[in-house]
């Protein structure tokens, strides 16, 4: 049984010289739900982009048992679903149906199967009636749920989300948290929302300045005030 995510000693510098990751190591077992926290610039988003090969640095990354290298990118991307922070740039098709169908269609699945996948994915995020709607006109909360559906339709093994609750009003946020709670997938979520962390994620990884500075049970980490303060975090009250 492989790890869902296995990162060994990953380092990465951007072309302009900025060092974003310094020897990051991380293991996530199937079924785990892990939160990734840290101040802006800690390298959380950079790390996430390595998980499906959009960026590639020194060190090794394995996802769902596959090494994330050029030859495997196709399969890797089918197994790890990445949902980015801004839904604007993820909904690039005219209708909701088209966006959710993109993944399965790219994979070459038959039309009937594509339709089924879209219906199932939309049902999971509670947006069954939205298939023919125009993505552009939806609210931020609705767009975020559709963005998750666009990735669920590929039936990934692992779900990685970057700031899922940012920009949402309390009601939309509540329903998104419910959605994530009901999803039975291995999950890695990068977030500033500490309430979300304490509610849904038994394990938390803290990053700062390109390194993993803490990795353990959420309860323990959130009780460690010195740790939180040192890395620009606040405990939920």
């Amino acid at each position: 049984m492989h790890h869902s995510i296995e990162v060994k000693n990953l380092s990465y510098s951007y072309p302009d010289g900025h060092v974003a990751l310094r020897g990051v190591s991380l293991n996530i077992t199937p079924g785990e739900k892990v939160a990734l926290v840290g101040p802006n610039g800690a390298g959380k988003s950079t790390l996430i982009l390595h998980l499906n090969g959009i960026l590639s640095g020194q060190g090794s990354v394995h996802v769902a048992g596959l090494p994330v290298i050029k030859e495997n990118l196709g399969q890797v991307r089918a197994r790890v679903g990445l949902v980015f922070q801004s839904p604007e740039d993820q909904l690039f098709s005219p209708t909701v149906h088209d966006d959710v169908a993109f993944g399965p269609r790219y994979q070459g699945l038959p039309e009937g199967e594509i339709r089924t996948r879209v219906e199932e994915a939309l049902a999971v995020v509670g947006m069954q009636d939205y298939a023919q709607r125009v993505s552009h006109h939806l609210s931020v909360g609705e767009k975020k749920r559709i963005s998750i559906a666009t990735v669920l339709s590929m039936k990934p093994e692992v779900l990685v989300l970057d700031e899922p609750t940012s920009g949402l009003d309390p009601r939309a946020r509540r329903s998104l948290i419910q959605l994530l709670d009901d999803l039975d997938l291995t999950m890695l979520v990068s977030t500033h929302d500490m309430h979300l962390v304490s509610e849904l994620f038994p394990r938390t990884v803290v990053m700062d300045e390109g390194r993993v500075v803490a990795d353990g049970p959420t309860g323990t980490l959130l009780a460690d005030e010195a740790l939180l303060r040192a890395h620009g975090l606040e405990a939920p009250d």
Partner: protein
Amino acid sequence: MHVHFLDPYIQADSLVHRLDARPKLVLAIAFILTTALTPNGAWAVFILLLALILAVELLSEIGVVYVLKRSMLAIPFVLAAFPLIFTVDGPALFSFNLGAWELTASQPGLERFVSIALKSWISVQAAIVLASTTPFPDLLVAMRAVKVPRLLVSIFALMWRYLFVLADETLRLMRARAARSGHSDSPGLKPGGSLAWRAQVTGGMAGSLFVRAIERSDRIYMAMVSRGYDGEVRAAPSPRLGATNWIILACGLAVLLLLLMFGLILTYASLH
């Protein structure tokens, strides 16, 4: 996750950087014009022009290697002139067979081809130095100085301002697409969809970019109106050019004129 690489301006405090953008633009264009007017085959002049631009590159402290690497971008277009070697009449150099045709390379043809390649390579270096040593806002001032109309300059300015924002959006769109471009494990399934579908999706991305750009421009317009914009584009008057700048401009133009004369004399004196 910014598209920093789009901005070619390299910070430094060299003489070239300190030269005002207006004489810089004029000199760059004069240099390219001189190169273009130099007759084909005037190798001595090409060498001197190359030496001149290399010297400027050294003075600008942006790195000769950097400029030379960037200058390679224009090289592929050289293929367009390649046939000249074989189609221009003149004393033959060598010939070979290509299938059913016999191709004969002529000396004038080769001369013309090499001249075009050299001219192109030398000219693009001047353009690179200009772009790398002049912040874009200064180039806008230079444009006004050479009488580019105000409305056009303001379109350039707004385009530049939002270029990076939109390039960022485009990058994120492409990443989002890549993230959902997975290969199924089932054998016999061909990934990628049809070509037409891929083009359609890309078009949709472009369309979404355009719609959001137009809506963003509405918000920009509202912000401008809130600050008194009434349709007339006004800009601050450009500062006067100091004496140093005028001297450098005059000397530069004089040198180029001399090189041009030299080239013409070289070519036509040798015809006698």
